[in-house]
């Protein structure tokens, strides 16, 4: 660990081989910078990070150097405070300000603007230039990002993130000298699904969150708390921000192991369902319940509501509980405790539940270890089996785009080029990529960085998987009838995975194929037997899918069968639209057979319409709990705000509704639960796999030097004025008995434990760059621990023990296309396939209309061209769909978009007929 001298004092630098700027920032020095970024590294363009280097103690003149481009070496002597270099840095800001517009009062970035911070930090004040500023024409880049080029300071971060990090192609740099332009070749939607990160990567207000603009508020007026994204199974950490009872925007919350510095566009822009008109804000009791409550429909009192619920629960009849893979562990467990494990089901579709139970078994027994996203990014040999990762786990795709740089990076290091020298890393790497193989039914966005791609129906993908496992280890079952080209591909993949230091297999439930999942497990087992630490990652359909699978909860058919076999008096449905889980007929039959339907929901849907008692619950931003992501990491999210109605009990967190119901029944386990932490403790106590869940975050009684952690900034304005139209009395801020956070400005102002950080701010650092101060090492772990807890670690077995466990051997026969039927597989869309995010107007705009995908030959055989209308008959209903030619689909296979109305709830894959005319029933 080298020692360097900064302004004549010695410092030990922790990280070997790093650059000087990174080292100084780690040590806490405030050196201004623009173009350097911890994930994008150094290019040396902006010249702002200048410091002075001295040859030795006697050198008084020194030389100005750029710290981001200087390697840390033993005995390096620099000065940060040298007057000449301070003047130089202020001069750089002055030059950037020559053409910068006086937009601060109207610029969205104001208050969290890195340029503002750096201007203040360098001390530049007075404008000397009298010349007219250069201006640009802005572009319409779509509904997600706003473009205001006049503010650009040409740090080049946007194109470096968009092109080099995220692999996008349609954002570029144009022209030269003082009118360099960043934009598209023409107006239009930015195609890359990580474009939203530009709002945080851009140090000024050129790229800003367009959805935030529609309900803008100054950043210091936002109430924020640590939260988790609920729109897929990756479990990215977020900071939602609220004001005046409305969720305004979502920003990235750094987690070294999970999402790092970035979010995908679905997670960033999918929050608007929280403010949607479809939100349920009042409890509701149906006409049927009148005989119990004696109320008039429409006017529901809490008293009446609980009269009904307690009647229901005390009645003695069977009460079923249908949980939700999007609800927290606490809510699901509380429901399970209320109705008992025998009457509880996960609420997932039957096939999905079945596959997920298998996956959870495989991950728990190992030997393949479930990797974090950071582990994924470090892999150097990857096989993707059956998953369109960009659309089912977008941030995993972003991690894979970094993973393919690992193998070529070895050559770069051999040339003595440091990892942080971004320009040269890319020059030395050229177009080389590490091995990534993508085997899916349809083409994916990762194809262009894959070494080889393989298109096939799910059974054939499984056969490839089994063959690869056998090629690695002959103890794995052999696929006997495999053709020449496939045999060659198998050998290539097997050899790449064997050569890799950190091989990774990615699979999931998208293909709805258990054999495929087994084949992935076989490959991991085969690699582990050779002594390799093979990672096995399964994408998860929803944010708590794995949590429910670990509870060993069965799918929805359990509830249907139970109601059919023996009459159920009531069902409690937790945050779940059953019409997305099974076909319409089955769902209606089930619901019609039950006299009392209690639904806990935040958003109205077809299920809530059938509710007898509708209990409005808080969304993720208005509730707290724990979710388990696809890695198997339990992470806690905290309430961001108290929505209107919550203090009167009209809306409650779903776990809270269930706690009240448990109290009413005087349940022996859960009757005394008061906070979600109590529920988590109960869960940890009963089910061993969850024993570390209460450690995912500090408990409600945690205090930092006796204080709570404030959700509001110390500059939060209008605290009393905002309620003045209702009452002139200053009300007490809402209590938060469930967490160490407070709904106020008062509390601990320093750096709390990582899981409690409510926002990034530090004196002089108002922008997202303040994150530097919260990390023990920039780009590394946060101070105060890694948030969340991994709860699945496969047993560490030596190769001998692994030998004893058997390989899976359910190798399917080769896929055979049928004459009059096609195998319909689901095709996933980052915008549209997920229920809640699709309610955001901007995401709705980008979601596809329902379609039927066929390859050109199949379409021609049927007499279709692109855009024609086709009819398909599925689960008792006829659908008319527009034909879309997807040339990569294999013969015999057709595709339907997943989750898009009216196609939600269909069980796929499925064999279906296609016709030109509306089919008879």
């Amino acid at each position: 660990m080298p020692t360097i001298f900064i302004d004549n004092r010695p410092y030990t630098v922790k990280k070997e081989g790093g650059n000087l700027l990174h080292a100084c920032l780690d040590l806490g020095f405030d050196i201004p910078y623009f173009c350097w970024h911890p994930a994008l590294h150094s290019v040396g363009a902006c010249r702002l990070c200048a410091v002075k280097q001295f040859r030795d103690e006697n050198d008084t003149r020194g030389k100005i150097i750029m710290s981001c481009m200087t390697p840390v070496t033993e005995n390096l002597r620099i000065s940060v405070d040298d007057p000449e270099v301070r003047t130089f840095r202020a001069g750089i800001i002055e030059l950037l300000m020559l053409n910068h517009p006086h937009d601060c009062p109207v610029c969205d970035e104001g208050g969290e603007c890195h340029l503002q911070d750096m201007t203040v930090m360098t001390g530049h004040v007075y404008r000397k230039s009298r010349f007219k500023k250069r201006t640009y024409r802005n572009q319409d880049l779509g509904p997600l990002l706003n473009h205001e080029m006049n503010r650009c300071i040409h740090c080049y971060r946007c194109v470096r993130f968009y092109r080099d990090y995220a692999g996008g192609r349609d954002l570029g740099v144009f022209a030269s000298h003082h009118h360099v332009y960043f934009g598209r070749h023409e107006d239009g939607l930015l195609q890359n699904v990580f474009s939203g990160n530009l709002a945080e990567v851009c140090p000024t207000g050129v790229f800003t969150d367009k959805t935030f603009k529609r309900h803008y508020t100054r950043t210091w007026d936002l109430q924020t708390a640590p939260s988790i994204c609920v729109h897929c199974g990756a479990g990215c950490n977020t900071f939602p921000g609220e004001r005046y009872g409305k969720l305004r925007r979502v920003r990235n919350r750094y987690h070294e192991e999970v999402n790092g510095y970035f979010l995908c566009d679905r997670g960033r822009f999918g929050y608007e369902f929280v403010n949607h008109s479809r939100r349920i804000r009042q409890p509701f009791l149906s006409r049927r319940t009148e005989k119990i409550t004696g109320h008039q429909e429409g006017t529901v009192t809490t008293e009446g509501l609980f009269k009904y619920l307690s009647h229901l629960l005390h009645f003695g009849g069977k009460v079923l509980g249908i949980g939700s893979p999007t609800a927290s562990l606490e809510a699901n467990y509380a429901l399970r405790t209320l109705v008992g494990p025998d009457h509880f089901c996960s609420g997932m579709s039957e096939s999905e539940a079945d596959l997920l139970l298998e996956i959870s078994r495989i991950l728990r027994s190992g030997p393949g270890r479930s990797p974090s996203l950071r582990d994924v990014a470090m892999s150097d040999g990857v096989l993707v089996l059956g998953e369109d990762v960009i659309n089912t786990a977008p941030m995993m795709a972003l991690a894979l785009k970094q993973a393919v740089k690992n193998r070529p990076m070895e050559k770069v290091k051999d040339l003595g080029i440091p990892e942080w020298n971004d320009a040269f890393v890319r020059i030395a790497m050229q177009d080389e990529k590490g091995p990534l193989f993508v085997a899916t039914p349809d083409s994916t966005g990762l194809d262009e960085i894959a070494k080889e791609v393989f298109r096939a129906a799910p059974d054939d993908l499984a056969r490839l998987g089994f063959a690869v496992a056998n090629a690695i280890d002959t103890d794995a079952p052999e696929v006997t009838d495999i053709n020449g080209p496939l045999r060659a591909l198998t050998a290539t993949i097997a050899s790449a995975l064997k050569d890799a230091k950190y091989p990774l297999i990615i699979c999931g439930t998208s293909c709805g194929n258990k054999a495929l999942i087994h084949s992935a497990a076989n490959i991991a087992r085969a690699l582990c037997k050779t002594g390799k630490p093979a990672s096995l990652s399964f994408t998860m359909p929803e944010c708590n899918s794995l949590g429910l699978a670990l509870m060993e909860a069965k799918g929805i058919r359990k509830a249907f069968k139970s109601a059919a076999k023996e009459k159920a008096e009531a069902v409690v449905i937790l945050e779940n639209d059953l019409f997305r889980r099974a076909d319409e007929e089955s769902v209606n039959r089930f619901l019609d057979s039950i006299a009392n339907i209690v639904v806990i929901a935040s958003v109205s849907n077809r299920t809530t319409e059938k509710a007898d008692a509708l209990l409005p619950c808080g969304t993720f931003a208005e509730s707290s709990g724990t979710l388990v992501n696809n890695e198997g990491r339990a992470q806690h999210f905290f309430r961001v705000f108290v929505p209107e109605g919550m203090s009167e009990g009209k809306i409650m967190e779903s776990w809270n509704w269930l706690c009240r119901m448990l109290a009413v029944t005087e349940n022996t386990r859960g009757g005394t639960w008061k906070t979600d932490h109590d529920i988590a403790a109960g869960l940890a106590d009963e089910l061993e796999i969850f024993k570390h869940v209460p450690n995912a975050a500090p408990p409600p009684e945690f205090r930092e030097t006796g204080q709570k952690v404030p959700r509001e900034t110390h500059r939060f304005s209008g605290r009393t004025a905002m309620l003045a139209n209702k009452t002139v009395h200053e009300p007490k801020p809402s209590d938060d008995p469930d967490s160490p956070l407070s709904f106020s400005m008062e509390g601990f102002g320093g750096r709390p434990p990582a899981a409690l950080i409510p926002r990034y701010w530090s004196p002089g650092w108002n922008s997202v760059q303040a994150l530097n101060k919260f990390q023990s090492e920039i780009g590394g772990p946060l101070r105060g621990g890694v948030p969340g807890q991994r709860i699945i670690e496969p047993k560490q077995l030596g190769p001998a023990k692994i030998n004893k466990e058997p390989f899976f051997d359910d190798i399917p026969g080769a896929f055979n296309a049928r004459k009059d039927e096609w195998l319909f597989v689901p095709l996933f869309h980052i915008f549209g396939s997920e229920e809640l995010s699709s309610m955001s107007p901007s995401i709705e705009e980008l979601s596809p209309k329902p379609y039927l995908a066929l390859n050109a030959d199949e379409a021609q055989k049927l007499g279709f061209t692109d855009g024609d209308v086709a009819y398909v008959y599925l689960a008792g209903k006829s659908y008319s769909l527009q034909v879309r030619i997807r040339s990569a689909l294999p013969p015999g296979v057709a595709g339907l978009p997943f989750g898009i109305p009216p196609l939600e709830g269909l069980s796929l894959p499925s064999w279906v007929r296609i016709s030109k005319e509306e089919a008879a029933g």
Partner: protein
Amino acid sequence: MNREKLLLERPLTGAMRPDGRPLDIKEYEDTGGYQALRKALTMTPKEVQEEVKKSNLRGRGGAGFPTGLKWATMAPVEDQRRPRYLIANADEMEPGTFKDRILLEGNPHQLIEGIIITSYAIQADIAYIFLRWEYNVSKHVLQKAVLEAKEKGYIRENILNSGYSLDVIVHVSAGRYICGEETALLSALEGRRALPRPRPPHATLVGLWGRPTVVDNAETLCNVSHIMKNGADWFKGLGRTSDGGTKMYGVTGKVKHPGAWELPMGTPVREILETHAGGMADGYKFRALIPGGASTEFILEEHLDVNMDYDSLQKVGSRMGTGTMVVLDDKTCPVGFVLNLERFFSRESCGWCTPCREGLWWTERLLDAIENGKGEPEDLETLQSLTGTMGIGRTFCVLAPGAMEPLQSALKYFREDFEKHITGNRCPWR
């Protein structure tokens, strides 16, 4: 003087035709062309490098880096990365410079032979001639000459049965000044945005497409065949000061005979100006000159006896640069002169680093204001501080520091003229 003696005194131009038409391959071989190549191929690459190193040939692009030393830093052949490249930098765009053009148009094979020998010395597999876009005549001349050389077997697999193979490609730039900067040239050649690259590592380790690459100026390469033919000692003896060889010098401005001449390295400035360029044209008096193209400092009458070589001019606060001088006469406004140069530099900034991109724009705006009678007294202070902000090491490459050289010396020598523009609210020359 007979041809052979002329070639020993003026190797670069001695063989050229008086009408300026290029020598075809037969004419070139008649003057002894491609003999040096034959000789070099009998030596080892190391030996060829040693000879050039011994000659102390220095880069003629303006920086004056010892060529042999640069070749020696080329990654060893044991480093398996291939192809290895040699690039002839013929992107001559320094304002006031036209010396390479004369060599390209007049004797293309001289460059090509130099390229083949150099490529052999550094074991390059492919050589590019990176040519300025505007040099349309040179493009045709070079392409024809490369074809001739291929037909004669000088560019091919297994040249002259030596076992050494080379391909030579003429690549025309898309047309910006920054492409003449060695590392931006590499980016441009790769089809990318012509942005310079940081150093280290140098191109000899990680260059074109990440492979080991040497970039040499066209004039530099033109000397190589002569050094191989006549020896390092002969080369060293040609110069009048410690630097060896001859140099293409040029003079433009209000002189009697503007033009270019090949003269011994180290010829005094006054001699070039008066003996060869004929001194000032009638009616004009000498005020100053910039010795080496636009990116060099002015020198005055009192400095004219200095030798034109790499080291001597530094002692009078300037640089030899490309060796083509631009003369400032007494009837030309120095502010306008510098404004014209800064307009060029500002327009040619690639836009990568802050000081050059914004600073040159501001410089141009200020000079424009001063020249058009709208200058303010503080402007001179601003300009002075800008010359510091855009100093060497403070910008990403040397375009901006070069742009500041004429400005900084003009502020020093012609301050009164600047002040007159400001106090008089007009240019006194117009």
